[in-house]
């Protein structure tokens, strides 16, 4: 099993569908930048944050957690057998965080001032902490990805004729960077895990300041811990989910040996998350809000049910041994965390004066799913060009 670019046709009916969705999103993005946020979104003075922050940013950061969880497993705990999943997870994290940064750029009103937090600091602000950590972490992710670029090009730098005098110097630079990077990479790997721990939890601190504007089912002082634990819980499921989809899409054999072992770790992690989450409900006695059965209560029930079903599924050996079982169980965790983030940022936010209940507009939804479609397309392009996904040697040969 070695990482290699996947040889496969890029354009398929599915890809064309994704391109159309992405284009639709781009149209609304253009309107947002020409006419302002109000022209595309249903946001107002009562509900300043909506789908773009709740899903693109908050859920995006959580679902990109596969990067730091698998780096911790593969590199920090030196479980070499998992190395083949680190690269795809890293790529997902890199692309995921790039899109999170882009979503922030789209959502903030003065997008041209996005660099301000770099020089204007407010140590009291949870958002400042998230912003700075995400900025550094994106940089770290690009550094961590760089070895795949050097691996691709060292000894193969080949500019067009009129630039070919650059071939040698560029090759030397790449070789130099590669050797420096492999000596220092552990600094970035550890930094990546620390930065992730920090901003995954601070993302939870974000809504604490909203105080009683937030529904008591979600407003708790342990929000940062719950956010961190749920991010860790969704890390491996996301890796499994992508790996299985990639195998299917590129007609590769799923790496069941690794994925099953990974899957067996998810149950206990989910158990810890659920213990804190359920403990929190009982300690703050918020279960009384569940039996009201209003929209918020139902959303809470859905969120909890998804996570508990996933927990039960991952405890079963039968599930973790079959690709379909793993896929379904992972999907439950992903859906659970996605809905949890939406609940925290959208459903739970209910200020005392709120005449128009927020529901995302067609434009907002278009931009969100357009960005996700674009993300999938870029992922596909990169794994077909760079050595990211590990394959059996005969598979590589067969495809070449």
């Amino acid at each position: 099993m070695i990482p290699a670019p996947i040889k496969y046709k890029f354009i398929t009916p599915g890809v064309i569908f994704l391109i159309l969705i992405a284009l639709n999103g781009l149209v609304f993005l253009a309107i947002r930048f020409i006419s302002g946020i109000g022209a595309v979104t249903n946001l107002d003075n009562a509900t300043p944050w909506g789908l773009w922050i709740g899903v693109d940013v908050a859920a995006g950061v959580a679902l990109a957690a596969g990067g730091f969880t698998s780096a911790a497993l593969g590199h920090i705990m030196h479980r070499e057998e998992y190395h083949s999943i680190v690269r795809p997870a890293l790529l997902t994290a890199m692309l995921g965080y790039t899109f999170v940064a882009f979503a922030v750029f789209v959502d903030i009103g003065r997008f041209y001032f996005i660099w301000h937090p770099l020089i204007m600091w407010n140590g009291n602000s949870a958002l400042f902490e998230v912003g700075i950590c995400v900025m550094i972490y994106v940089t770290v992710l690009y550094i961590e990805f760089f070895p795949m670029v050097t691996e691709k090009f060292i000894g193969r730098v080949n500019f067009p004729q009129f630039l070919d005098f650059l071939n040698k110097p560029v090759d030397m630079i790449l070789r130099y960077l590669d050797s420096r990077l492999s000596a220092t990479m552990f600094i970035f790997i550890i930094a990546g895990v620390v930065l992730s721990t920090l901003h995954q939890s601070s993302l939870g601190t974000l809504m604490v300041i909203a105080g009683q504007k937030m529904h008591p089912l979600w407003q708790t002082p342990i929000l940062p811990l719950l956010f961190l634990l749920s991010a860790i819980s969704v890390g491996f499921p996301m890796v499994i989910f992508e790996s299985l989809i990639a195998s299917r899409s590129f007609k590769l054999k799923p790496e069941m040996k690794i994925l099953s072992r990974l899957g067996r770790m998810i149950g206990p992690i989910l158990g810890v998350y659920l213990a804190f989450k359920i403990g929190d409900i009982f300690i703050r006695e918020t279960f009384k809000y569940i039996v009201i059965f209003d929209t918020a209560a139902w959303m809470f029930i859905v969120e909890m049910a998804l996570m508990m079903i996933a927990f039960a599924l991952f405890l079963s050996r039968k599930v973790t041994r079959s690709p379909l079982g793993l896929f379904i169980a992972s999907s439950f965790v992903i859906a659970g965390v996605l809905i949890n983030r939406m609940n925290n940022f959208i459903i739970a936010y209910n200020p005392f004066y709120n005449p128009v209940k927020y529901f995302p507009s067609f434009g907002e939804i278009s931009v969100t799913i357009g960005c996700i479609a674009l993300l999938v397309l870029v992922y596909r392009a990169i794994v077909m060009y760079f050595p990211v996904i590990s394959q059996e040697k005969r598979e590589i040969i067969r495809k070449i």
Partner: protein
Amino acid sequence: MKNLNRRDFFKSAALGVSLTVLGTSKAKGSDKMLSDDRLGILVDTDVCVGCRHCEWACRVAHNLPTPDLDNYSDNSVFKEYRRPDAGSLTVVNKFENEKNPLLPIHVKVQCMHCERPACVSACIVGALTKGDDGSVVWDDDKCIGCRYCMVACPFQIPTYDYDRSIDPHIRKCDLCTDRRKNDELPACVNICPNEALLFGKRDAVLAVAKTRVKRKSDVYVNHIYGEHEVGGTSWMYIARKSFDKLNMPHLAANPAPGISESIQHGIFAYFVPPVTLYALLGTIMWITKRRSGDDDELISDEEEKGKGGKL
């Protein structure tokens, strides 16, 4: 990773730690001492007649599009409950007075200028600041338009220009900072024909409020809104009806940013927890690397064949 020997590891790890420590900066807390001279304004809703001249004067003072003052005698706007928006930093609403229907209660809404403001604590770039005079003001040159102040504000005050793509503003009452520089009163206080707005040092204003509530205890409910809410506010209200029924949010006395800042400072505590975590992970990495030495050799074998991946 394989090229790394143990000495290099410690060298670089030490560098990493020292860099992080260098980056440490003392976070400034929002619990700084408040000036004794800070300002306060009392809204005596029993004196206010709802002429809405304050709305007009406020728009003029802040260069917002302003209708003719004559239009303000139209009482039909009171049919709907209104909130400040991008075009008006203050609005007056009318509430029924069950005891005397001929004397409805008018309540002016604007930024409360909290003593411990959540928006100042929340703002990612420190674009909102609390001055020594007690005013909470917004800085056009810093704001990135993230609207976190709106999420944080317990009174739902800051508003945003949703219709502008370039240079959208966060708008809210600034306690007429510019006018006060020229020794003028805030526009609303200045124009109020009935002296429903009492402007002065907060302590003095609060004392007057207490006297009025005590002297006319049959008229006013025994509650000065803003004395204790979210740790106290610069604007305070007295009324003859419970504030819950005047659409004023029911808030506790602990400062709005409270737990959020404690959590934030707990996680960071002079960067000790992150640095400790870094050191801990580094140690685990080093120990497990020793243990998995055999695996490393396996990988190098593969690499010698020419195709193996580093990292």
